[in-house]
């Protein structure tokens, strides 16, 4: 689990928006994520839900490449939850 000492539970309460990318295969979760992030303001937190197994590595890679901060991740069964702070 990643984060800044916050538990994912606390982070999920702070989320400003959710993007449900369940059922989408690579590269669509990333394409949708990039679009959605443009709609949000700096400092806001997006919750991304995905079930493409590639997302587990792809989302952190996207965050580090684009400079947006991944503040938490969680796995719930086959669903990955990512919490990303807009840069």
């Amino acid at each position, binding site marked *: 689990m990643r984060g800044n000492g916050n538990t994912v539970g606390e982070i999920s309460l702070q989320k400003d928006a959710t993007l449900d990318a369940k*059922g989408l*295969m690579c*590269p*669509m979760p*990333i*394409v949708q994520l*990039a*679009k959605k992030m443009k709609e949000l303001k700096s400092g806001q937190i997006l919750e991304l839900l995905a079930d493409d197994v590639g997302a587990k590595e792809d989302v952190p890679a996207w965050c580090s490449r*684009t400079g947006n901060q991944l503040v938490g991740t969680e796995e719930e069964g086959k669903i990955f939850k990512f919490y990303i702070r807009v840069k």
Partner: protein
Amino acid sequence: MADKFCMVVSEGSFDKAMMPLIMGNTAASMGMEVHVFYTFFGLKLLKKGNRPKLPGFMRFFTGMMEKKMRKLNVPGIEEMTKQARELGVHFYACSTSMALMGIKESDLAEGTKVLGASAFLNLAADSKMTLFIG
């Protein structure tokens, strides 16, 4: 300035159509500037209304592959191309290949630019990475 990412596509089969679209859409979503140069058999992928098939004997199973992709919610060539254009991916046709393949500028999909090798290499020389798909 955004990092540049270039690709050269030299084959016109279904898989060679998909790969640059997947890479291109992803790279553009990661904030990169994407340039794709279609040459030789790859050029026909830029023709209006082109429906590429799997390579060799597998061509007979293209429909099955498309059906499976729809079932798995994997976006098809048409959707990925539309998406790539929305994200500003640049598509280029090789001018020499056009002459070789008898393809006219009016045969190419909207928004395609015709380039020679020198203009593409000028872009590739400034890019962070270049992939050859063929």
